[in-house]
């Protein structure tokens, strides 16, 4: 019996020794895992953005970009996120929507900006979408819903137009699953608090749009695709209460109203 236990122990030691030895090798670099993933993501991001862009008008107003950029910069700097990696697009649309595409494309519709009462509410939405990007939810959702093989066939030009349209629809109009949404909300609260922006404003935005949602509106995409807005507002407040935030203004007094005017 002693011999058996000794041999089992040796077998386990052998397994963990091999695991330990293999752990010493930098496989990620050797197999160029990150490079391959990044390159696929970049191709997908550019392709989906170009296709979406072809049917929508992008706002190229420098002043409007500068104002939203200062919001982004505040969140990025406070959370050690590289601002340069995020590609910001403001799109003319009556649909209240904002979404992330692969390769850190952040798309914000003008209707969403107009529906925000102040810049802090917009920061909440931006932080939520940034959380999806930073937590790699965009690619995970695509792989889960579409499949890795189809995604690769899209990048190599072997997928049909119907499939590509299906993916764009998925990215712009469908929500992530409840677990990922909650994770993005909680992370967004952390981002906001690190940036000394009060997350309660984000909760207010959700609660307000949640009320509109019950009245019914075809233009409330961002809310319609993110279920239980009131519940989300509640847990955002519950999470943010844990840390006291001494909110500091993000923009100069009239910058946000100026932004709204620029987008009209």
């Amino acid at each position, binding site marked *: 019996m002693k011999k058996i236990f000794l041999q089992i122990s040796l077998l386990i030691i052998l397994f963990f020794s091999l*695991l330990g030895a293999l752990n010493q090798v930098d*496989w990620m670099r050797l197999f160029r895992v990150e490079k391959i993933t990044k390159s696929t993501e970049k191709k997908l991001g550019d392709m989906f953005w170009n296709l979406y862009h072809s049917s929508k008008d992008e706002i190229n107003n420098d002043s409007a970009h500068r104002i939203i950029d200062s919001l982004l910069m505040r969140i990025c700097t406070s959370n050690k996120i590289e601002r340069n990696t995020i590609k910001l697009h403001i799109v003319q649309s009556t649909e209240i929507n904002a979404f992330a595409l692969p390769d850190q494309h952040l798309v914000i519709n003008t209707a969403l900006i107009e529906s925000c009462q102040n810049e802090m509410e917009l920061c909440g939405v931006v932080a939520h979408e940034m959380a999806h990007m930073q937590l790699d939810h965009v690619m995970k959702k695509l792989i889960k819903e579409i499949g890795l093989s189809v995604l690769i066939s899209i990048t190599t030009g072997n997928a049909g137009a119907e499939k590509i349209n299906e993916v764009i629809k998925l990215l712009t109009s469908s929500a992530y699953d409840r677990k990922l949404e909650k994770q993005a909300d909680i992370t967004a609260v952390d981002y906001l608090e690190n940036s000394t922006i009060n997350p309660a404003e984000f909760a207010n935005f959700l609660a307000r749009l949640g009320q509109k949602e019950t009245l019914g509106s075809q233009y409330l995409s961002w809310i319609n695709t993110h279920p239980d807005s009131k519940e989300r507002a509640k847990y955002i407040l519950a999470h943010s209460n844990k840390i006291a935030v001494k909110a500091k203004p993000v923009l100069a007094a009239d910058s946000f109203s100026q932004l709204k005017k620029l987008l009209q």
Partner: protein
Amino acid sequence: MMVLNKFFVEPTEHELEKASNSYLMSLIALMAGLPFPIINLLATLIFYVGNRKGTHFVRWHCTQALLSQLSLLFVNSYGFWWTISIIFTPEKISNHYIAYMLTAFVFNVFEMIATIYTAIQTRKGKHIEWWCYGNITNAICKP
């Protein structure tokens, strides 16, 4: 790693075939259910249960085949659920993951080679006892 021993009774042709099949069973299941490691174990377990009233020689080899599958089940299941979590959750491919999968692969390859070799040798009438697994089987499977 393997010991060629003489079994204390001379097995019949039918016994040799059944004993050899117990190893082949796990290989066939491996091909059929590669993504689900539990299938290998289940297939070997069903074969083992089917032969538990068989002769000592057949039972002995069914037990050794089952034990080898059982140890791999833990290794492969961990790898399987890790892969699932990478696909469906925010978990990412990491150095640890690749190292673990390679370790699991090495152990699976060793087990597969040993299984094929033992299946052939058992069919030829040779009694092969694996290192470690042979001793455990001797402790479990009594005449």
